[in-house]
């Protein structure tokens, strides 16, 4: 099948809703004489007074930079001759987001997906972390006062290698240290899946089909697709395994470890049922565990099976984060996997029991170091790629995960947020996502186009890469690989962080555990 190219061009992908949720709103009262002064002074085009119109249109509140404008010469509230304008925090932001994805992070992700750039400072978005009070949200980088070496963006390499074994299989490199997480056809719309696939092509990275079959429409992007073999084996066929460069075994998912997969009946539409060869409208459950795998030796047989079916494929093993995740990782390496993918307890899902999301298996922040160190101690760290997921929300999370010991990450929710997700958590039942992202409802799926979705993701990837490059520049690092395992560059806000001779200093760049 000829492979389609997708250009990595960054261009504006404006919000698809009429009223983008804004951090601040400008309120106009009845004293307004419609003189147009506000529209003249505002540099951000917040005020809309179309030529020939007598009245102002709805303001572009999402473009307003808020209080940081107060000291400028273009602050509309101060310039209004009638004093008719007022700047307020948008009360709707209190209802948007949650501890892990606060409103600021959602709005910043939207902004990055719109512009392809780092959110400008004046917007005052916290695009670095969430508000969960632990893990990544309490970790910070210890940047040196000035970079040890001045590096230009073009001198910095953000690519990572996914095959570290010398086994004759392709040495696949991806241009950014992340790829898209598995989301099955059934859990998300085909527009969402195709947008993810096309963005993966543009950025020379990957997307994953999840467990739900391989749409024929994905075929032009085969070279950037990971197909998943999960416990329900839904949609798994020899020909789909043969199409792709990477096959992923999903043993467990961070959001519901030990519980298998769930696709509730309402989302099992005719197209989904056809793809999964299942009965229309019934809930589909993937069991836990793989009933053909009860030991690492069984796992090795699984891997051999796939390696035999597709002689060029790399194998990824996706596991969750139990206490002995380190043992699982080493076992998986010895079974022949190329990628160990650990998915932490706070990862995303299309449907999971609430009791599982919060309570089973450890958050990814704990698991990364545990696995990385154990692989080091076993002397195999440089023969396997360690990928982390389950709560990677921002470029700073990517960098922190790598500094803790991962080679790269898998992202999922961040992509959906870029497509307009507000995390209302209604993806699981009925017609699915009311915003047309995680749904198979034909009408709701029309809420966005593949072109728009692709561009939003291309833009988000670009903004994240820029942020990563900014971090590497400040450390004077030429490659993202240099950051791996550099816990000495991190500090934790809840700890005393004593300067310790045992801890490596920023000048020790290049020495890594």
């Amino acid at each position, binding site marked *: 099948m000829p492979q389609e190219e997708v250009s990595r061009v960054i261009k504006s992908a404006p919000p698809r809703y009429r009223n983008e949720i804004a951090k601040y709103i400008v309120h106009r009262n009845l004293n307004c004489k419609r003189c147009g002064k506000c529209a003249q002074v505002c540099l951000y085009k917040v005020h809309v007074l179309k030529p020939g119109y007598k009245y102002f249109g709805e303001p572009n509140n999402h473009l307003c930079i808020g209080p940081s404008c107060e000291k400028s010469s273009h602050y509309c509230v101060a310039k209004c001759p009638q004093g008719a304008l007022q700047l307020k925090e948008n009360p709707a932001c209190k*209802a948007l987001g949650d501890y*892990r994805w606060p409103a600021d992070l959602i709005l910043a992700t939207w902004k990055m997906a719109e512009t392809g750039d780092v959110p400008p400072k004046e917007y005052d978005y916290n695009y670095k972390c969430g508000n969960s009070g632990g893990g990544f949200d309490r970790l910070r980088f210890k940047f040196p006062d000035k970079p040890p070496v001045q590096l230009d963006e073009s001198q910095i390499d953000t690519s990572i290698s996914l095959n570290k074994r010398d086994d004759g299989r392709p040495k696949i490199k991806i241009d950014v240290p992340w790829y898209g997480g598995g989301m099955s056809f059934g859990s998300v719309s085909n527009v969402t899946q195709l947008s993810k696939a096309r963005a993966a092509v543009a950025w020379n990275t990957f997307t994953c089909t999840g467990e739900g079959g391989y749409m024929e429409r994905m075929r032009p992007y085969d070279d950037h697709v990971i197909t998943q073999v999960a416990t329900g084996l839904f949609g798994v066929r020899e020909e789909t395994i043969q199409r792709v460069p990477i096959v992923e075994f999903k043993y467990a998912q961070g959001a519901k470890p030990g519980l298998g997969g769930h696709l509730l009946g309402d989302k099992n539409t005719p197209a989904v049922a056809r793809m999964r060869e299942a009965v229309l409208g019934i809930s589909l459950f993937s069991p836990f565990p793989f009933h053909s795998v*009860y030991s690492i030796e069984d796992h090795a047989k699984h891997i051999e099976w796939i390696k035999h079916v597709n002689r060029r494929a790399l194998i990824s093993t996706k596991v969750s984060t139990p206490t002995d995740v380190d043992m699982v990782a080493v076992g998986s390496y010895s079974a022949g996997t190329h990628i160990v993918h650990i998915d932490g307890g706070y990862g995303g899902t299309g449907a999971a029991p609430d009791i599982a999301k919060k309570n*089973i298996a450890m958050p990814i922040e704990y698991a990364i170091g545990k696995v990385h160190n154990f692989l080091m101690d076993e002397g195999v760290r440089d023969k396997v790629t360690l990928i982390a997921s389950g709560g990677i929300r921002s470029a700073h999370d990517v960098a922190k995960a790598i500094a803790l010991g991962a080679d790269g990450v898998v992202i999922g929710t961040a992509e959906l947020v870029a497509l307009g997700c507000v995390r209302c958590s209604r993806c699981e039942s009925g*017609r699915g996502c009311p915003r047309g992202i995680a749904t198979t409802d034909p009408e709701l799926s029309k809420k966005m186009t593949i072109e728009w979705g692709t561009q939003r993701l291309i833009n988000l990837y670009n903004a994240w890469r820029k942020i990563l490059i900014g971090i590497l520049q400040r450390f004077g690092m030429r490659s993202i690989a240099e950051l791996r395992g550099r816990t000495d560059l991190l500090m934790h806000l809840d700890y005393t962080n004593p300067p310790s001779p045992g801890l490596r200093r920023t000048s020790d760049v290049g020495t890594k555990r």
Partner: protein
Amino acid sequence: MPEKYHIKTQPVPPRRPRIGKYGVVDWREDCARCHNCVKKACVYDRYRQEAEYIRNLSDVDALFFDCMGCFSCVQDCTKGLLCMSINPAYENLGNSYWTPYIIKTTWLQAETAKIPVSGAGYQGPFAGYGFDSMWTDMSEIVRPTRDGIHGREYISTSVDIGRKLPYLDFDGDKATANPPHLVSIPMPLIIDMSSPAHTLPQLDAIITQTAVNTGLIAIIDSRHWSGDDKQLEHIAFYLGPDSTDIPKEALRKTRLVEIADSSKVIDRIKELKKMHPKIVVAVRVELTAAGVERAIQLAEIEEVEVIHIVADANGNEIGSTSSLQAGTQKPQFIKDIIRHIHTAIIEKGNRDEITLMAGGGVALPEHLAKAIICGADLVTINLPLLIALECHLCESCKPGMPCPAKLEKIDFDYGVGRMTNLIAAWHDQLVEVMGAMGMREVRRLRGDVGRAMFFENLEEETFGKLFGSRKNN
């Protein structure tokens, strides 16, 4: 195939309007009356339902807010007249421990008897206080199941209550000692007495019938017993210091009885055993400052079979509220108290002989599993069952004060249905987490801290090594 434990359930809709998390504020005066109004496009049809509700409004203080918080209407309104907000009625539910989320999810389970399932990942804090500072473990590849290969339908949640023998001794084929009588219940849960503040007509009758429906046992204060002796197998009388004596005939129909702790506890147990040799006697120990050591001390007494430790409603040591408010002392939480008592009894060498029941602060099904992992054999609850009846935990239960949930008007079938549904949902969730852990027996889960990960340990292992000491230590 042996008969499986199954609780029969059916949906029991709420009596009161639902209290949703979100509400949409609407500035209707500027409405342009668009023909394609976003309200018509609501995927959940909430605007039409709300209008219909208001048209048929019969209760002045009832509000309708069941918005799903998708922001679609807010973002698509032609004139931007809609604004999403958190429903203040939702925020006012419960208290700092019994959060609005706990109240809402309990209502949902009491209505549907189903395990709450949702999309998107976990949305809460990284870790929290009490039970929120631990995670249960799961099995994977190298040990997919702890107890051999089994389907979820083979997971047993039954527990035995009573004093067990430390070991069996045989003379040839014949056991030399008679094993003491044990009470078996199909789930590690006992319904505890309600707080005196929560006195409702029929409450004890509803609770008793719920115990019958679920095969469990409810502890009823002997002073409140109606005299009905039909369901005594599912009742454990609580005999307090000033309790009414229960007729011998009635007591003989029960399997478990609970007595208040006192200096005469041995005599009291002997007295009850004399009346009914097969009865299992539990000693209730209030977890005051002295309660923890007292529980450990009781475990050493040969006559004591079951110790029931009870913390306050929020799981804290009783009487710690004032020190908590003053910030002078961090109260001990039930999870840590259970671990302490469990470990202490193990060190004394008689843990397997004693049954430890723990109550207070158990608000969600994961708390049930976690309390058992910490060392309890079974757990007692009462507040979640009251919440199942749509209680808001507004704590205004005083004579003469109106109850916003109108609990005084509940129907018997409604009450039993809601409580039964809640227990069924908890049972299913216990099976879920045990399935994830690869455990086949809830009895084997007791004290198996290897099936859990604790925040302080993980922090120390991960970040303590890298970043020094934790500041709040």
